[in-house]
């Protein structure tokens, strides 16, 4: 177990170094990066001063090492539009994004499991065909368009859900104001229903298909037939015998999907004017606020790597055959 943990940790560190390298290279790709940090009207002297201040006049390897060192300390420079440390700005927006990503994951997984099982148990019937057709469609819809359609129908036409805004849950929770946090929770979820569904549609559709095919495979196995022949109720066979093994590919997918959801959140947040990292990145793109874009991307990639590590550990725990 410890060898596996250390090996995976080392791998994650290598990947993180790679992430900083890619991020550094991306900065250099457009030529002299100084121009990304100064205003368009800056004079030659101002540009030179900025170049020296930002260290872009030094050799590339030195620049990279200094970039990594600063990144390790969370220093991505000052935001060009907020005039304060970029990472601070990103971290302020982080709780809202985490709330939305987790909520969409919970919704997607929570809905895909019964749908996938139901389709598998009704294999070949119209209800199976219907669920699978919807799933195929769900995998073809851009999440931001889904968001727009939900705003039009559920928000504006039916008026069931709010189309923008956010009630914080994690923020008061982190601040130790537990009563406020839990008082906010129902409202927080209510405001997140539409964006979370928009973000999670693809994951929901994909997992429903995956769970269905995984269940069908498991239901055809000898040990399931044995369980049935022993007279165990169908519910117990499905929930106890089949589900345990059908879970494995799903857990792997959850790890992969989380990163995908994080990427999706970036786009969907802008549709719902949701005050998370996505909207921050969108505004930063429009204002060419490079430090904020870099800090956001690195932070999200870091979270993604950490989650993948956790998923690997859960996977190893669920399936003892996975060598630790």
């Amino acid at each position, binding site marked *: 177990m410890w060898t596996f943990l250390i090996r995976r940790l080392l*791998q994650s560190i*290598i990947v*993180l170094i*790679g*992430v900083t*390298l*890619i*991020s550094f290279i*991306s*900065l250099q*790709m457009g030529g002299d990066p100084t121009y*990304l940090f100064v205003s368009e009207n800056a004079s030659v002297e101002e540009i030179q001063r900025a170049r020296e201040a930002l260290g872009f006049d030094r050799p590339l390897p030195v620049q990279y090492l200094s970039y990594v060192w600063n990144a390790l300390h969370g220093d991505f420079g000052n935001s060009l539009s907020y005039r304060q440390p970029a990472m601070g700005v990103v971290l302020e927006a982080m709780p809202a994004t985490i709330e939305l990503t987790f909520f969409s994951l919970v919704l997607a997984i929570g809905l895909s499991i019964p749908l996938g099982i139901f389709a598998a148990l009704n*294999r*070949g019937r119209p209800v*199976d065909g219907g669920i699978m057709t919807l799933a*195929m*469609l769900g*995998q*073809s*819809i*851009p*999440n*931001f*368009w889904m968001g*727009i*359609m939900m*705003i*039009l129908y559920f928000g*504006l036409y039916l008026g069931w859900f709010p189309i923008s805004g956010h009630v914080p849950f994690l923020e008061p929770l982190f601040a130790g104001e537990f009563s406020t946090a839990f008082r906010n929770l129902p409202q927080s979820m209510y405001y997140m229903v539409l964006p979370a569904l928009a973000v999670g549609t*693809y994951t929901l559709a*994909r997992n429903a*298909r995956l769970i*269905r*095919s995984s269940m*069908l*495979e498991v239901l055809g196995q000898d040990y399931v037939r044995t369980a049935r022949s022993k007279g165990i109720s169908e519910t117990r066979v499905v929930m106890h015998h089949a589900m345990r093994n059908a879970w494995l590919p799903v857990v792997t*997918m959850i790890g*992969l*999907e989380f*990163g*995908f959801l994080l*990427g*999706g959140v*970036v*786009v969907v947040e*802008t*549709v719902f004017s949701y005050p998370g990292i996505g909207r921050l*990145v969108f505004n930063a*793109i*429009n204002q*060419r606020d*490079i430090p904020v*874009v*870099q800090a956001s*991307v690195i932070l*999200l*990639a870091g979270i*993604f*790597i950490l989650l*993948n590590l956790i998923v690997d550990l859960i996977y190893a725990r669920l399936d003892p055959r996975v060598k630790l």
Partner: protein
Amino acid sequence: MTDLHTNVVETEAVPVPPVSYRRREMRRAFQSLVTSRWALLGMLILLVVTFVAIFGPAVAPFDPNRQNIMMRLLEPGSPGVGDLTYWLGSDQLGRDVLSRLLYGARVSLLVGVAAIAVGGTLGTVAGLVSGYFGGWIDDVIMRLGDIQLAFPFILLAIMFLVVLGPGLVNIILVLGIGQWITYARIVRAQTLSLREKEYVEAARAMGDSTFSILFRTILPNIVAPLTVIASFNVAGVILSEAALSFLGLGVPPSVPTWGSMLSESRDHLLSNKWWMAVFPGLAIVFTVLAFNIIGDWLRDFLDPRLKENG
């Protein structure tokens, strides 16, 4: 956007078959296609989109960039100047939504196919080299891939496009480079098993060059799984392009794209100008759906063992 790295399908490779066999397989493919309602539907949608992408400018009723402030935000079916009708309505600058939609098909397909060509070529070469030579080359290539996969893809694309600036070539390169590892992994796995086959041994014994063994002996045997991945990938790339255009990182504003049309529609949602959002979105959905359906069909056809249960 779709997860671009997980629709991975591996089929066992066999030596390049003789021509008569290939002809028989083509016939089998055609029969399978016409008997599968879904695959036929996918192919039909794709044919329509391709037709529109090629001949769109000829059939578009308006110049897609022609602004007419008097005709702004017209509902679908509104009459225009003379005999012309705004069948799908007009946008905030009075441009015809239908004409922009027809032009947009060109960009979506072009970006989709070109990005796959870039990513597929890079990945195939990397995978062949990695699988055939093994050792440190293999390690370096695969670890590079691991690093890339550690990024949610859209974030990587955002990071590069913010610095490089929007543009057709930039978006094709970024989306293409984003795909290479998917191909590299499949090609590597196939090459690893193929390099031990007798006919590859034979080619080696006959004194064929490494280049010839890689590209003439091994590559033709791994084309089948690559076409499946490519089909799913085009769908993913079209979704990514739409998302990036939506964020303002796609092609320049003068070129109409489905993603940028959706981006422009955002400011008019509250005034219920639904047609600006509905039609470009449907165009994306149907195109992506067609590629996904064909990908599914190709996967089942090329290796029935992989057919999803049911």
